[in-house]
């Protein structure tokens, strides 16, 4: 039996009923008196100099309240990474992609705002555009930014171990390539903002953000406001997956417009604007060379990656580092070289998306392992098992894995999906259209360092006992964007205080409540979980001290369990305290029922003795990682790992791939909420499957997106998705609360390569360009006729 009462169960989410009844409020559901609606003018050109912006006709349109351009907004640079502040609120000298933001209008309704946007006249001098990331760095290419010579936004060369030594030890060495397309996160709720400045000059902004704290800082910096004057509130958020982690132009524009009009301003992106603003998955061009000994031991990895990041840096510096650093695990790899280069092009800026930077790198490396296994004549799962790291090991790039259920995960999917039996039916290059493939993954459980240089706590939590006696309220800046962090905080608090889950209320996602760096890099369960547990224990200590004092017993002999104070040292006389409580509650119906003091009595008595009972908690990772340039990216207090098997069938005539089954196992350390862990895994499988088979942003020759909608940018529907089998592995992470670590992003890592390996098993062809559309696959099948001897 579990030693926990609430943790490790399938407790329903604390916000589920509100969401099921339509009561949960998202930003676009909010209304304020005298609220204006805003619209944005986007660049129609990929690259152009701005000669003049004429807003006079728009200003004369009745109903228009304010128009802002760079003249009003100023040109103070901002961005995500302090070393690469390359954005201004509105374009002033140039536009750098189709969709770049030039101006915003606030009007009494949306129709007028949109009409006004149409009336703004901008004179451009069109410039040649850079649309291909592979050649963007070549001499003679048009330059996007003065600060990025040859359009190189960031570049790194890492050298760990001795690559030549590794090469010498190798029995097999092979080189493979993979490219992907830019992708969209396709969250269901488009970005929405409501901003209001009051007469004291206090700015409140409700926003569909993943990171209220960073947004608060960016608003204060870019709008030149004192930090304490800026409050960011995150209502219910309809998914984020990365792009909502950076401060958007919508947020800045709405704030600027409320500052100028003195009226609340709402700005909600339409779906096309979501695609234009992007900040989603980069385009990657990977080349990897790796080697193995005869027995399958990995000897080295030489990895080159060019990232097409679109027009601005956004999170892209970290993306570039992650693309290299997260190949340090989950296999023992002594020698690794990484050449990363992120270029800017005249396309929407890319940023973070689930599995930040590491997804396509992982896809290629896992495909390469399969190809090596084939050359060696070694089963792909055996090859992986031969190389997996164990807890207590450190990667060549100085990432320490304190818990690691990689072997267990791999064995779990192998056995659950009947790998040995099914694989035996196929084997090498059969072409019967049925295939099975496996892959592994590795991911951080919270980035070890904040985005700005600081020794800030990553999060704090304040928990207050109800002064009337009864439940507690947990206050946190953490951002529940649908992943369920509020439920995790409630469960941890209920567990620690012996309370029913219903008696814990969570207030979160408000920069005024506490510092929390936000929902990115799969951090909240581990980091805010730690802080939350500490705050709950602080409340418990204070309550038991107060009660112990009144009862004349040492507080160490008391505990909170099952909504009661229990004595660990024999019976105690509570009659005086109960009498006092009953006196206060004459006429009340539900009064204490049991021989022990109830939590209600105890917390009320604690208040009577001491005033407000407030517990606080905090978390900051210890110093982590090496001292080389970029070493901070990839560090984490813990690492998740995962394995997956995909089964596919391929129509050899049309190239259409049907994923028949996905079996995934993820090591989350300890499942605080079993249902939510499965939900993150299944959601990752869906996103990864979409990226493997159908998701791609398509540009025309002028840099315009031709599929900026959810019909032509295809994501999987319920009919596309197979049965998803999610297996939870628990490795008891020593650095996580209760042994817990991440699941939100790590679970996507093996998805794409397991599908790619299954497609190869089904067809005998390898596709090096993602997604594997029917067109690409059928062309490859036709170009690679199978020799009769290869058929099974």
């Amino acid at each position, binding site marked *: 039996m579990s030693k926990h009462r609430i943790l490790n169960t399938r407790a329903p*989410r604390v916000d*589920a*009923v509100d969401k099921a*009844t*339509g009561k949960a409020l*998202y930003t676009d559901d909010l209304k304020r008196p005298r609220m204006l609606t805003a619209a944005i003018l986007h660049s129609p050109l990929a690259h152009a100099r701005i000669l003049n912006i004429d807003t006079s006709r728009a200003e004369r349109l009745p109903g228009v309240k304010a128009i802002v351009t760079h003249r009003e907004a100023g040109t103070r640079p901002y961005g995500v990474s302090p070393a690469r502040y390359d954005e201004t609120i509105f374009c002033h000298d140039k536009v750098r992609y189709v969709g770049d933001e030039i101006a915003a209008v606030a009007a009494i309704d949306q129709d007028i705002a949109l009409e006004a946007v149409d009336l703004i006249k901008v004179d451009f001098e069109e410039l040649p555009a850079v649309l291909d990331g592979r050649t963007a760095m070549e001499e003679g290419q048009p330059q996007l930014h003065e600060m990025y010579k040859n359009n190189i936004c960031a570049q790194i060369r890492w050298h760990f171990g001795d690559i030549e030594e590794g090469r010498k030890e190798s029995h097999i060495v092979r080189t493979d390539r993979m490219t992907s397309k830019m992708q969209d996160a396709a969250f*269901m709720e488009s970005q929405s903002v409501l901003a209001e400045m009051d007469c004291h000059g206090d700015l409140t902004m409700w926003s569909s953000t993943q990171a209220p704290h960073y947004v608060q800082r960016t608003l204060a910096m870019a709008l030149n406001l004192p930090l304490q004057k800026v409050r960011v509130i995150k209502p219910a958020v309809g998914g984020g997956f990365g792009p909502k982690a950076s401060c958007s132009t919508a947020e800045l524009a709405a704030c600027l417009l409320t500052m100028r009009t003195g009226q609340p301003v709402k700005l909600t992106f339409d*779906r096309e604007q979501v695609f234009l603003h992007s900040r989603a998955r980069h385009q990657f061009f990977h080349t990897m060379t790796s080697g193995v000994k005869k027995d399958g031991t990995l000897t080295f990895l030489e990895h080159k990656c060019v990232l097409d990041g679109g027009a601005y840096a956004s999170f892209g510096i970290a993306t570039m580092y992650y693309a290299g650093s997260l190949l340090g695990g989950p296999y023992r790899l002594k020698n690794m070289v990484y050449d990363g280069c992120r270029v800017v092009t005249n396309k929407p800026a890319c940023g973070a998306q689930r599995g930040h930077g590491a997804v396509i790198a992982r896809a290629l490396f896992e495909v390469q392992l399969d190809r090596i296994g084939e050359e060696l004549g070694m089963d792909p799962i055996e090859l992986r098992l031969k190389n997996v790291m164990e807890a207590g090991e450190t990667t060549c790039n100085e990432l320490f894995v304190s818990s690691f259920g990689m072997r267990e995960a791999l064995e779990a999917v192998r056995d659950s999906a009947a790998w040995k039996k099914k694989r035996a039916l196929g084997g090498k290059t059969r072409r019967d259209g049925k295939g099975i493939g496996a892959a592994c993954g590795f991911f951080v459980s919270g980035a070890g360092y904040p985005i700005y240089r600081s020794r800030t706590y990553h999060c704090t939590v304040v928990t207050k006992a109800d002064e009337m006696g009864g439940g507690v309220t947990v206050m946190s800046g953490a951002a529940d964007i649908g992943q369920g962090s509020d439920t995790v905080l409630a469960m941890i608090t209920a567990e620690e205080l012996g309370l029913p889950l219903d008696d814990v209320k969570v207030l979160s996602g408000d920069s005024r409540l506490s510092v929390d760096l936000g929902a990115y890099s799969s951090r909240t369960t581990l980091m805010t979980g730690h802080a939350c547990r500490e705050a709950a224990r602080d409340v418990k200590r204070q309550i038991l001290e107060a009660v112990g004092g009144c009862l004349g017993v040492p507080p160490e002999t008391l505990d909170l369990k099952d909504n009661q104070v229990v004595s660990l040292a024999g019976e105690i006389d509570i009659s005086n305290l109960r009498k006092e409580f009953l006196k206060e509650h004459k006429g009340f119906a539900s009064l204490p029922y049991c021989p022990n003091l109830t939590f209600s009595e105890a917390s009320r008595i604690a208040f009577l003795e001491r005033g407000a009972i407030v517990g606080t908690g905090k978390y900051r990772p210890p110093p982590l990682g090496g001292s080389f340039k970029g070493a901070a990216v990839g560090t984490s207090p813990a690492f998740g790992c995962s394995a997956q098997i995909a089964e596919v069938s391929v129509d050899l005539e049309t190239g259409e791939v049907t994923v028949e089954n996905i079996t995934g196992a993820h090591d989350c350390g300890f499942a605080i909420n079993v249902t939510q862990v499965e939900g993150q895994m299944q959601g990752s499988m869906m996103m990864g499957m979409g990226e493997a088979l159908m998701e791609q942003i398509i540009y025309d020759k002028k840099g315009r997106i031709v599929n900026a909608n*959810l019909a032509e940018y295809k994501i999987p529907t319920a*009919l596309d998705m197979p049965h998803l089998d999610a297996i939870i592995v628990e490795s008891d992470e020593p650095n996580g609360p209760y042994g817990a670590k991440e699941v939100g992003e790590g679970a996507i890592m093996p998805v794409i390569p397991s599908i790619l390996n299954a497609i190869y098993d089904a067809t005998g062809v390898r596709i090096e360009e993602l997604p594997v559309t029917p067109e690409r696959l059928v062309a490859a099948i036709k170009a690679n006729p199978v020799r009769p001897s290869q058929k099974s």
Partner: protein
Amino acid sequence: MKKIISFVVNGIEHELAVEPRRTLLEVLREDLGLTGTKKGCGIGDCGTCTVLLNGVATFSCLTLAIQADGCSVETVEGLAEGGKLHRLQQEFVDHGAIQCGFCTPGMLMTAVELLRRDSAPSEQDIRRAISGNLCRCTGYQKIVEAIQAASEKTS
């Protein structure tokens, strides 16, 4: 010029003057304050705005409010009765079929229509029925399981 329309929303009759070009989605959200119905795309791609129009699952973003004149409209706000969740809502809650929740109202309305039409749908029937409702969080697995559980309790 505005038109007067009258329709019944979740059992309550409303008479409204609306611009003919306004969508049912806009009128539900803005005029009646029924913000449970969501706008995910506005052009009929995602299904988050699904309501029942005379019992038929309909994208309210592609429906003009004047087309609902004389009709009965059901939204997510009308599902729970007397403080008790509709069985589909309860199963969605219990099965973890809700993450960000933005697709949930539309998904529920589609499922309500399905179960009225077919009290014992197969898994494939369920997947087909909700294939016009996109969800980016769940991989659909727990949604399908929740609808299956609700149908088993009906039949």
